[in-house]
């Protein structure tokens, strides 16, 4: 029993320490943001690495998710004779929830794991130490551009996911299922609100981009500098980032749409 309590205590202490370290780390990284302005090329490279390279998987997933939503929504709505609302169902699900969340999960798997592995390997091969000895702060030079790149890339990816998904839903609904085209768009426009739905979706994706990238760069920077340590850190990134996205989604949804 005491052994159990001891383990529990040590575990809690360990988690608390990690949380503290993660936040201090973030503080130091954010300190490097002003220095990035004159050197935007560094951030550009990272937008390429995390955004452009995730583009294909995000667009293809968006297309399929939109098509499935239309198919499933149709089967339910047809019972009520309300298939004109299909556009609303597809677009609201995508813009409010699936766009930001699924894009963030894909982002964590595609870009987050790559970031962790990259930074972890840089640590394992002493590249970060070498930078420090060259009087270059790796938190500013390596981590900060990656964090900013992720924050910029994520909302764009989520928007592309939603837009492609709505187009996919449109093709299934109007092309395959014969829903009236005018009703599909006009019902959508009547029910989807620019601020309530779309702006909130964008805010969600900015938050997710920030949290996923933060977890990814921290796990990489904090990794045990061996090949085993880096692979463990990569797994942790995907698991922790996905959980963080889903948990935060609940909180953000409650804050944004809860008081209606």
């Amino acid at each position, binding site marked *: 029993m005491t052994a159990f309590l001891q383990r529990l205590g040590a575990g809690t202490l360990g988690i608390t320490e990690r949380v503290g370290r993660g936040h201090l780390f973030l503080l130091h990284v954010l300190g490097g943001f002003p220095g990035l302005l004159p050197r935007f090329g560094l951030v550009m490279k990272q937008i390429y690495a995390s955004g452009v390279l995730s583009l294909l998987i995000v667009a293809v997933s968006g297309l399929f998710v939109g098509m499935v939503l239309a198919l499933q929504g149709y089967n339910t709505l047809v019972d009520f004779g309300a298939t004109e609302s299909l556009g609303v169902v597809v677009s609201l699900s995508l813009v409010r929830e699936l766009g930001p969340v699924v894009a963030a999960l894909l982002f964590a798997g595609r870009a987050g794991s790559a970031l962790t592995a990259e930074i972890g390997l*840089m640590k394992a*091969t002493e590249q970060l130490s070498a930078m*420090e*000895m060259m009087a270059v702060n790796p938190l500013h030079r390596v981590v900060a551009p990656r964090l900013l790149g992720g924050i910029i890339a994520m909302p764009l990816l989520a928007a592309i996911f939603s837009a492609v998904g709505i187009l996919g839903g449109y093709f299934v609904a109007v092309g395959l299922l014969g829903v009236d085209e005018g009703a599909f768009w006009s019902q959508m426009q009547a029910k989807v609100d620019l601020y309530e739905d779309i702006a909130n979706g964008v805010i969600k994706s900015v938050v997710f981009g920030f949290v996923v990238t933060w977890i990814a760069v921290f796990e990489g920077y904090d990794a045990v500098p061996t090949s085993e340590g880096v692979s463990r850190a990569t797994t942790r990134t995907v698991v922790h980032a996905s959980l963080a996205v889903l948990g935060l989604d609940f909180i953000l949804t409650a804050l944004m749409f809860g008081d209606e």
Partner: protein
Amino acid sequence: MPEAWVRIRGLHYARGEQVIFDGIDMDIPRGRLTAIMGPSGTGKTTLLRLIGGQLRPDAGSVEVAGQNVSALRSKALYRLRQRMGMLFQNGALLTDLSVFENVAFPLREHTRLPERMIRDLVLMKLHAVGLRGARELMPAQLSGGMARRVALARAIALDPEMVMFDEPFTGQDPISLGVLVSLLRRLTDALGLTSLMVSHDVQESLSIADYVYVISEGQVVEHGTPAALRRSTSPWVQQFLQGQSDGPVPFHYPAPDYRADLLAEAP
């Protein structure tokens, strides 16, 4: 003997329970090539990190160019580091940059020189290590010896006053070994560098160093010029220099009596 550029006094450092340095005094003379030798695991790399200010000593002081490294705030420490170069064991080149960009990295980070001048400087440094023709290659395409030479060019890019070498000779074939050995000596003399080399390759180190420190178990066991060291009367130093398998450092890890062990009941 010229004045000391690095002065270490009463240095204590422990990693957890394990004591790595237990009171070390050392003077690294300016403009000379000093070698620090010792068996693997005696914390030679740790010593370089202490000098570079990446680690803080538990007690004692490390003074570089008259400044106490562990007391410096990070701005001053970064300024001091611009006056030192360090060559890591495997080069530690930045894998996403080409050879040229690796050498240009410290110049781009710390100076605002025009692109033309950076190009000239980089080519000069690469020429000094004989790799001007390899400038477009990526680090993954280099052999181990070439990677270390590129890292050396990078370490001297800002014309530092001191360069630290971490195990520069480990795992090299005879030709690249010869290249590195002569390069180290030549650069030290030509640039007036204060060179500090950590190594356990006895013959190479003794052949090029001006001064040698031998450390073991957290203490300085012996120091002096290579010639003085060869005449050392310490049996431990003689075993280390000649690479004998048995001596003060026993071949066997501490164990109970062999006979008794064999005859004992299986647990």
